[in-house]
């Protein structure tokens, strides 16, 4: 198991290197630069700024210096948020995104798993059709529609929650719901499909033939296999929840990393774009690895193969 983890992490090194290189040159291909602003900045000041950040050097030199700093874990200064380093921005804003993402994930699992399970067990009944139709709507409805809708209904009309902000505990509800519903819907559909597949397996029939109570058949014999599709989906889902919260963060004014990321791209804040991309890439690699480990742990055969 340890060897598997170590070798997967070793494989991640060239991947990270490629991502860093590609991003470095791609952001610079985009027209404009960090200091091109609406208001004119005198030539001398601009030159001075560029010299300060080393942007006057040849690209190869900039690249070499960036990679050297990267190896030390230094993501450089932000060009736009003066006086703050990229490391600082990430370490300050990511916890907010992390909290939002985890709350959305818990919500998605709490809603999706039971709904899918019930739908699979009461197939072709109202217990199946109603949650599945809702799930379909949940998948189709984009966050920029759902978010304002929830804010309008629960924030303004009903007044149960603040329509935006990130100050008190109840402010977490609407953003987490907006972010989590899509994943809840997906998880519900995956759970249903997985459980229906497993419940028709021979070994479930064996469990029934043994005279086991239905809840033992479902929870002990069928569930492990039935939620495999959900587990595979959790890797991308968690990554998506942690990185894809930009819209939600914007709608509800949540001070998370997602907002910094997109603003950085608009501002051509090269180092912040690079830093965020690399951070997200590392996050996705680690999450996928974690999901593989959990999945292997649930599947005895794969566990063996990993040594």
């Amino acid at each position, binding site marked *: 198991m340890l060897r598997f983890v170590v070798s997967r992490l070793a494989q991640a090194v060239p991947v990270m290197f490629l991502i860093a290189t590609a991003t470095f040159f791609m952001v610079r291909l985009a027209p404009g630069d960090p200091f091109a602003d609406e208001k004119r900045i005198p030539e001398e000041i601009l030159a001075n700024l560029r010299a300060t950040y080393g942007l006057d050097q040849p690209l190869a030199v900039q690249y070499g210096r960036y990679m050297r700093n990267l190896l030390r874990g230094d993501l450089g200064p932000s060009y736009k948020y003066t006086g703050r380093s990229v490391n600082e921005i990430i370490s300050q804003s990511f916890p907010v995104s992390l909290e939002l993402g985890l709350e959305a994930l818990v919500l998605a699992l709490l809603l999706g798993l039971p709904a899918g399970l019930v739908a699979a067990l009461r197939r072709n009944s109202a217990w199946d059709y109603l949650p599945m139709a809702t799930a379909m709507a949940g998948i189709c409805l984009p966050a920029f529609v759902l978010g304002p809708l929830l804010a309008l209904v629960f924030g303004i009309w009903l007044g149960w929650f603040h329509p935006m902000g990130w100050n008190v505990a109840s402010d977490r509800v609407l953003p987490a719901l907006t972010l989590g519903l899509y994943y809840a819907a997906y998880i519900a559909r995956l759970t249903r499909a997985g459980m229906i597949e497993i419940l028709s397996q021979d*070994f479930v029939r064996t469990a029934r*033939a043994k*005279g*086991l*109570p239905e809840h033992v058949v479902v929870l002990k*014999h069928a569930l492990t296999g039935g939620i495999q599709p959900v587990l595979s989906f959790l890797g991308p889902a968690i990554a998506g929840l942690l990185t894809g919260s930009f819209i939600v963060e914007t709608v509800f004014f949540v001070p998370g990393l997602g907002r910094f990321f997109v603003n950085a791209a608009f501002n051509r804040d090269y180092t912040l774009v690079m830093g965020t991309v690399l951070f997200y890439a590392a996050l996705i690699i680690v999450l996928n690895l974690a999901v593989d480990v959990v999945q292997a742990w649930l599947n*005895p*055969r794969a566990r063996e193969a990993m040594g």
Partner: protein
Amino acid sequence: MLLDVDNLRTYFHSRHGTVRAVDGVSFSLGAGETLGVVGESGCGKSVMCMSLLGLIPQPPGRIESGRARFGGVDLLACSASELRAVRGCRISMVFQDPMTSLNPYLRVSTQVVEPLLYHKGLSQPAALEQAIAALDAVGIPDAARRIHAYPYEFSGGMRQRVMIAMALVTRPEILIADEPTTALDVTVQAQILERVRTMQRELGTAMILVTHDLGVVAGVCDRILVMYAGRIVESGTVRAVFGTPAHPYTAALQKSIPALHRKGDPLYTIGGQPPDLRREIAGCAFAERCEFAVECCQRPVELRPLTAEHWTACTRRLAGDITLPGAGTTSR
């Protein structure tokens, strides 16, 4: 009688019509007796067995009629919890494919102790001890250690031994074995059957053995049911049915055993296909493939006694119109 099945009908309702998988089957099983059920694929053998234990997926399946009396309970009409108390405890079942019938996610130990935990109320250590003894009894070497392995670490033959041990661990009164050796190697088949026979004798368990291997039936069973298109066409003692088959279908089945032919002879096959079970069949279901069929075969038929221990559904044989060649049973 230990088990008395009367007029069992199991239909499957689909968009393309109603499939009459089991259509009016009656038989009984005595304590300790071994009953063979033979017939070609799709004739309703497995569905019949699974109907008895309520293992038919409903929908699309439905038990349309019938009674199955087992020790004062009607298995087809009793409550779900009554049925659960019987399954895996007093009536156990072994399935055809050992590769898929064990749960790949759970250790063998977990699976074999389950009947003991849920039916006998044993503690985990006591159940584990009995489970190890059961695996030992079906010939799994080093059972005390192997029991903690996962199913994928066992070969097909060994998995079927696990299935048999699991089925017999509660000392059931009836073991339903649905083609237990079909998926196995020929060399392993004989060992497994022998093991089941030994266990059966030791525990006094009655057995319903579903198979399409007539040789197995001849060697193992006391009585035999021959099924065709969801109905029983002939039943009786092995000696009577194989010695003097009383239904053209049985005779034809026997004729198709390759071992009974001289080397080099063309293999005998029964012409035509089994009937489409979505169609209502008024008369004898075998009539359209039967060399002896005449007009009266289109009228409703029923299983009637030829002698006390030999019944047939062939109208013409019952009337004494035809004589069928006996193949000589155990001369393999």
